[in-house]
């Protein structure tokens, strides 16, 4: 379908430049209001009572004292409300627990009151009698004989078991020159957006629900919320507000339907916003994974085959765990040409916070494992890290064993450029020499490649793509209606740039309203790095549509043939005589008068060419725009203290045609910062009693201005020919290679390979002491 589409790069004037964000002025003056600033007339506050046990039966709940607290409008529990179990993949979670709680933080009851103080007081008066049950606190215990069962429908605590074979991997291992096997493990990482999750919900008397929130998937999440609330989807409206970061956490989330539920029983609008500690305990942090990777190679470094086993920790409820696990299993297979593959995965429940989407969607975890593994193999084969990759990289038009096919594919250019910018080869030599002389500080440099999709055709069978409606009002001002929301990544500006370029219009006459599901076209939203690729793909078509209409109107008005006309600075002008012109305002006014009331519309839709829903064996191309990248990291390790300083990171990414270089640089720098934090500092830990040990910013450290490496970013020369603007997406690929590049650099510095994240100073310190001990024993 549409596989012969091939756009050429246009003569862009605004696309590809550096443009300040269109919403920056209001943000920098404090004028922008977010969810936490939003209120409605007559609004109450909502709060939830959460389980203090990781696993317990609820014997009784007594709410009588709570109901008497002054200012309290309603108190609800799982037993006195209408609800269904819900979940984006597996319907396994109630809004309020009914018989059993499955993690510390599970919602047991909720209240609505005139302020947060009244709510807190009411919560303190709800008496819950629990019977604690044995809990599973590590994924390695989940499938053990006699392990407690968390969900009756999953007696072995396995939410999903996947096995994706492509060819006979065992015979590849038998005949290979080198077979290498390694184990790797990643930890719980919290998204740590600076605005906590929440929403404001209100119902009308006909049962129509409006949720004011910041949701990455506003239209699609309505389906999940309708299930949870046992109501028709069509009665749910989401009105997007500015929101303070998402990074994957703000897709379908318990907080929105639970807030709506409280509002329903309160009979008034309710604001339900998590406090930071709740957000830590009940967000949907990155799925921890254990990897066993076994690969086969010939003596020239040709990659012959790969076997992967993954154990993935879904926490108490499934959320998006299954597609995340799948992504970890095979997304990386479009970076290298590997003919024979098998990947097996068990996604298990534990009695901890439910895990979910976090920038990279499982692929980041796999990058950590795989890009470490490739460096291990390179050393065994005596081939440089980049050369081993060059010998196996995907190229444009490569079709892999899963049926995925690259279009633009500049991974080699990314690595070459990053190697050059960082002076990688010289530094490998120079640093080794320096390290010989310097006992206490050891320096090292390492690299890692990366791939991600721009949109993943695995979620909804009959739909993939995006739609855009452009509307020019009677003053000639253009509104862009898209289902791809801005969460800070800058798509509001990206779309504005495309319109400014395509319609030759000033930024102050372009407006991208926040999605309101009653208004915008149907769409999936911003996840799977789909925003820029899909929305600009559709926008290009919509702009052409509107352009054609403007030219026709001007041709009538000016009595000139259409071919003689072009767009220039908010007008249609004659190419031959620039004094013959009609402004958009004139044309737009003529249109609403000729067709009473009707604005000029530009309609665009985009389906990525050659992309199909996977079959039962998970075969078929899932993305039209695979994005690539390479990070090089330089580190210093203090061998006396174990302290790691990541001094520099150079990144070069293939995002096709850059739309806004300013935002792209920012996205890439921010993605790298998250990968860096994950690699060396961040870890949401659990105590033996099943409680999160560090659920606050004091104890859970994310990178600060003092920690962050110097980050140098650049982009490959590339154009993704499946869309008119040629752009692929940056969001998740930005995070994927940072951590493995850092690990490879640490190995280069001290000769110790770490296989478990995060690499803290304590870990480095003990590993160095062990290494010393071992070398003394040998002597």
């Amino acid at each position, binding site marked *: 379908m549409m596989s012969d589409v091939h756009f050429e790069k246009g003569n862009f004037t605004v696309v590809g430049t550096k443009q300040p964000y269109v919403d920056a002025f209001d943000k*920098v*003056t404090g004028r*922008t209001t977010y969810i*936490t600033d939003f209120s409605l007339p007559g609004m109450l506050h909502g709060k939830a009572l959460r389980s203090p046990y990781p696993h317990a039966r609820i014997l009784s709940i007594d709410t009588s004292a709570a109901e008497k607290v002054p200012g309290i409008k309603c108190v609800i529990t799982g037993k006195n409300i209408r609800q269904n179990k819900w979940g984006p993949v597996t319907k396994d979670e109630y809004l309020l627990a009914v018989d059993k709680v499955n993690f510390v933080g599970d919602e047991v009851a909720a209240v609505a009151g005139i302020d947060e103080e009244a709510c807190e007081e009411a919560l303190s008066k709800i008496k819950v009698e629990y019977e604690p049950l044995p809990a599973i606190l590590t994924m390695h215990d989940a499938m053990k004989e006699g392990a407690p069962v968390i969900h009756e429908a999953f007696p072995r605590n396995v939410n999903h078991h996947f096995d994706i074979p492509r060819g006979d991997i065992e015979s590849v291992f038998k005949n290979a020159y080198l077979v290498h096997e390694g184990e790797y493990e990643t930890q719980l990482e919290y998204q740590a957006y600076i605005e906590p999750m929440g929403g404001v919900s209100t119902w009308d008397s006909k049962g129509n629900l409006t949720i004011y929130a910041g949701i990455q998937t506003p239209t699609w999440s309505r389906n999940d919320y309708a299930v949870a609330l046992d109501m028709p989807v069509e009665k749910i409206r989401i009105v997007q507000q500015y929101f303070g970061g998402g990074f994957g956490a703000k897709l379908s989330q318990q907080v929105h339907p639970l807030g709506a539920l409280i509002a329903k029983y309160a009979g008034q609008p309710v604001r339900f916003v998590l406090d*930071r500690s709740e957000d830590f305990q009940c967000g949907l942090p990155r799925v921890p994974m254990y990897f066993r990777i076994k690969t086969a190679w010939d003596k020239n470094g040709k990659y012959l085959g790969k076997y992967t086993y993954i154990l993935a920790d879904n926490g108490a409820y499934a959320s998006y765990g299954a597609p995340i696990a799948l992504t970890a299993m095979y997304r990386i297979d479009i970076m290298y040409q590997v003919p024979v593959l098998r990947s097996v995965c068990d996604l298990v429940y534990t009695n901890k916070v439910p895990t979910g989407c976090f920038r990279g969607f499982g692929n980041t975890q796999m990058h950590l494992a795989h890009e470490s593994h490739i460096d291990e193999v390179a050393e065994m084969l005596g081939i440089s890290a980049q050369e081993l990759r060059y010998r196996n990289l995907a190229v444009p038009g490569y079709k892999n064993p899963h049926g995925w096919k690259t279009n633009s594919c500049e991974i080699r250019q990314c690595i070459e450029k990053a190697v050059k910018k960082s002076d990688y080869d010289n530094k490998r030599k120079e640093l080794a020499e320096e390290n010989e002389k310097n006992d206490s500080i050891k320096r090292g440099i390492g690299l890692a490649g990366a791939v991600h999709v721009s949109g993943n055709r695995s979620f909804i069978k009959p739909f993939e793509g995006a739609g855009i409606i452009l509307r020019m009002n009677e003053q000639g001002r253009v509104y862009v209606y898209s289902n791809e929301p801005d969460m*800070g990544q800058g798509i509001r500006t990206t779309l504005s740039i495309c319109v400014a370029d395509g319609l030759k219009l000033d930024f102050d006459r372009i407006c991208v309203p926040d999605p309101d599901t009653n208004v915008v076209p149907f769409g999936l939203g911003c996840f799977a790095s789909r925003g820029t690729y899909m929305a600009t793909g559709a926008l290009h078509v919509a702009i052409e549509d509107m352009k054609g209409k403007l030219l026709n109107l001007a041709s009538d008005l000016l009595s000139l043939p259409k071919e003689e006309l072009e767009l220039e600075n908010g007008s249609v002008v004659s190419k031959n005589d620039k004094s013959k012109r009609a402004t958009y305002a004139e044309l737009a006014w003529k249109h609403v008068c000729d067709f009473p009331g009707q604005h000029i519309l530009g309609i665009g839709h985009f389906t990525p060419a050659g992309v199909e829903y996977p079959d039962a064996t998970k075969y078929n191309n899932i993305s039209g725009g695979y994005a690539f990248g390479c990070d090089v990291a330089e580190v210093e390790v203090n061998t006396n203290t174990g302290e790691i300083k990541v001094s520099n990171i150079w990144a070069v990414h293939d995002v096709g045609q850059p739309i806004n270089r300013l935002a792209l640089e920012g996205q890439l720098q921010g993605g790298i910062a998250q990968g860096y934090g994950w690699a060396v500092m961040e870890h949401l830990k659990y105590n033996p009693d099943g409680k999160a040990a560090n659920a606050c910013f004091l104890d859970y450290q994310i*990178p600060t201005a003092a920690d962050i490496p110097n980050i140098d970013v650049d982009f490959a020369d590339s154009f993704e020919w499946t869309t008119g603007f040629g752009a692929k997406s940056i969001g998740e690929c930005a995070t994927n290679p940072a951590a493995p590049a850092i690990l490879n650099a640490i190995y280069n510095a001290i000769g110790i390979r770490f296989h478990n994240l995060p690499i803290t100073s304590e870990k480095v310190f003990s590993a160095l002491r062990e290494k010393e001990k071992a070398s003394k024993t040998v002597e």
Partner: protein
Amino acid sequence: MEARELNFTVNGKPQKIEIRTNWTLAQVLRDKLGLLGTKIGCGEGECGACTVFMNGKTVTSCLVLAVQAEGSEIITIEGLSDGKTLHPVQQAFVDVGAIQCGYCTPGMVMSTVALLQRHPDPTDEQIRYGLTGNLCRCTGYQKIFEAVKLASKRIRGAA
């Protein structure tokens, strides 16, 4: 909770309001004065989104009790400029793209203003340590560093 009157100056305007003694300065600024530019990211003084000036020094307003602000002069993000012409720090943040979701931005801008008052021409080290109290999860700080340097140049008349 006991109620009392609070007299203080906010963005140059004297204010006299009824408060409860357990309210924080952030609460009063946001809920009583409608100054929503001061953001609450953690309520524990760790993220810095609620940073404002109190008597010329930055404080995390979520940790300051409103009663402690009696007689003080407060400047919030709304008071940094007239809302038409930006303060050089604000302008630099806009120009270099130091803002993504923008939720940390008001606090980050206030800390930058304070930093440039202490160190008009800051070293990289001074910038980094001057902003450690303000968390940003979107930008990776690189463009914020750029903004600080640009603002410093402009304020010193060097750019």
